[in-house]
């Protein structure tokens, strides 16, 4: 780095005007050109969604029009009505799948927020507990094991417990996913130990401390937890396919595959397929818009420890 002599009063004067104006905004703002390029790139990244949402509202004329149409001229909601009313080939109406997805997602998120915070507190702060290191090692190691061969044993266990074909099979295994635990543990790490020590000296029991200190302090992190858990559950196609055999309980991603089994080139239900795609793509985006300020504020903590 160039070493410049410490600016004295004299040589600071003539340059001060230039520097001081730049220091007014302590970080350079991007030039106009740079901003334009960035905006263009962002638009390009978003184009696939624009196409998807456009096709959800297109009539069949324009869906298969050649040259391909991006922005529809004739808007219609007929695709959505096809989707919502009973479709031939599916034994339950589409709304049922939507309801299932929402239900499962809601309970999983609720369960994860409660249970992960509960378990993260001892794992983060009670480091002298017998078995602490071992348990944490198990948690970390399980993050790295994603074997498909665990599906069969897991299926057998769930059958033994009598949970096959129930909502519980979709909720319980996911609630104990280690990702939420990892996140909450990192966040609770950032709570200073002195606060807890002071509370302990004041005679608070662990449960009391949980209630009065930990829960309020971790509320910002819940935004991140909710967002990421919801996305994980909402998009999950593997678990329902494995554990649920009755149509009435299947979730959106599974139903999606039945709509147009030939991919994007089948004519039948192409519009409904796009509409279903939009229904699947939109909720995570909306949830992100709602929680984004809290999420970004919390991510700083999540990245610090690690």
């Amino acid at each position: 780095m160039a070493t410049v002599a410490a600016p004295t009063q004299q040589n600071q004067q003539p340059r001060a005007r230039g520097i001081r104006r730049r220091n007014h905004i302590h970080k350079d703002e991007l030039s106009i050109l740079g901003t334009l390029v960035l905006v263009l790139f962002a638009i390009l990244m978003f184009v696939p969604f624009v196409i998807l949402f456009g096709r959800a509202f297109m009539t069949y004329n324009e869906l298969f029009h050649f040259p391909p149409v991006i922005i529809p001229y004739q808007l219609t909601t007929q695709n959505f009505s096809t989707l919502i009313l009973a479709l031939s080939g599916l034994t339950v109406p589409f709304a049922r799948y939507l309801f299932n997805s929402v239900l499962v997602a809601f309970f999983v998120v609720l369960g994860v927020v409660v249970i992960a915070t509960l378990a993260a507190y001892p794992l983060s702060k009670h480091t002298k507990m017998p078995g602490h290191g071992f348990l944490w090692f198990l948690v970390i190691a399980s993050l790295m094991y994603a074997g498909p061969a665990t599906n069969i044993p897991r299926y057998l266990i769930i059958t033994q417990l009598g949970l096959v074909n129930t909502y519980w099979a979709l909720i319980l295994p996911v609630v104990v996913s280690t990702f939420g635990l990892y996140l909450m543990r990192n966040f609770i790490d950032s709570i200073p130990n002195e606060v807890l020590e002071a509370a302990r000296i004041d005679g608070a029991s662990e449960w009391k401390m949980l209630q009065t200190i930990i829960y309020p302090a971790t509320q910002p992190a819940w935004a991140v937890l909710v967002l990421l858990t919801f996305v994980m559950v909402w998009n999950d196609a593997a678990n329902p396919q494995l554990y649920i055999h009755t149509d009435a309980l299947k979730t959106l991603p599974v139903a999606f595959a039945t709509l147009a089994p030939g991919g994007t080139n089948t004519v039948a239900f192409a519009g409904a397929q796009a509409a279903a795609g939009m229904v699947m793509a939109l909720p995570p985006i909306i949830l992100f818009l709602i929680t984004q300020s809290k999420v970004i504020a919390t991510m700083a903590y999540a990245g610090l420890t690690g």
Partner: protein
Amino acid sequence: MRAEAEVLSGVVRRPGASQAFGRWTRKVWSYRASYMMLSPFMVGFFLFTILPVMAGIGLSLTYYDVLQTPHWVGLQNFKTLFLYDNVFIITVRNTLVYGLVTGPIGLLLSFFFAWIINRVRVTWRVPLTLALYAPSLQAGTTVALISGYFLSSDQYGLFNYLLMRWGIVHKPVTWLQNPHLIMPVLIGVTLWMSMGTGFLIFLAGMQTVNNSLYEAARVDGIRNAWQELFFITMPQMKPFLLMNSIFAVVGSFGGSGLLGLAGGINSPDYAAASINDYANDYATTRYLMGYAAAIAVIMFIWSYGLGRLLLNWLSEK
């Protein structure tokens, strides 16, 4: 009581096994609140994660085709995998290529865009962040659907349509059926989706960098944004970079998960199959669970080993 008696009688014994055990029991009892808090999670974790993993490791030493009960074959599966399985080598190559390209490049892209977005006006940050983050929120099936609009192998696919219209090609390109093109296509789509949690973490982390550092740097002679990036932003972001890079590289070795794109688990010539896809193939299509479990064990050793290696290497720097 006992200690008093010992001292009074002049005999001091070292703590025997039973006393040490008593002490340990008391310690465990003193932590009973912690154990109670851990229990809901640990019960489910044990039932639904640990037990299946142990069973999976056990299965890798057997021959199990779901129809008969598993019978023991020892390390036979592993021997076959390493010595006789040609397709396994192909999948290893695929996974390496895929992981080494998308991991670091995705990380660099996330870092770069987080840095740029941090420099634009605050009002523009939310829509820009949304545009870059939204793809990572999508499911594999949705991405497969959207990609189908672009990558369809007939002239309706948007890429093909544009390429043909501009005269670059004269026949539609078979993006997804050509073994040579599948991997680049897969990598491209993954990079589109790669600005996820890591991106947000970088974005947040960069906002926490102390602003007085930038001012001090200006006094010291840093002139433009690139210098600022190298000398200040990157070193400050080291802890974030560490965690993210581990997740990125290890995670991308877990396979693409974009199976729907290539129209099924087995792409032509296994050109796009990752090790994960290969194991899935054996598990769900051929029902050779023992072999699939062996592949899974290898994947696990690999990911865990790689993760620890990266952790050690990067935390020294």
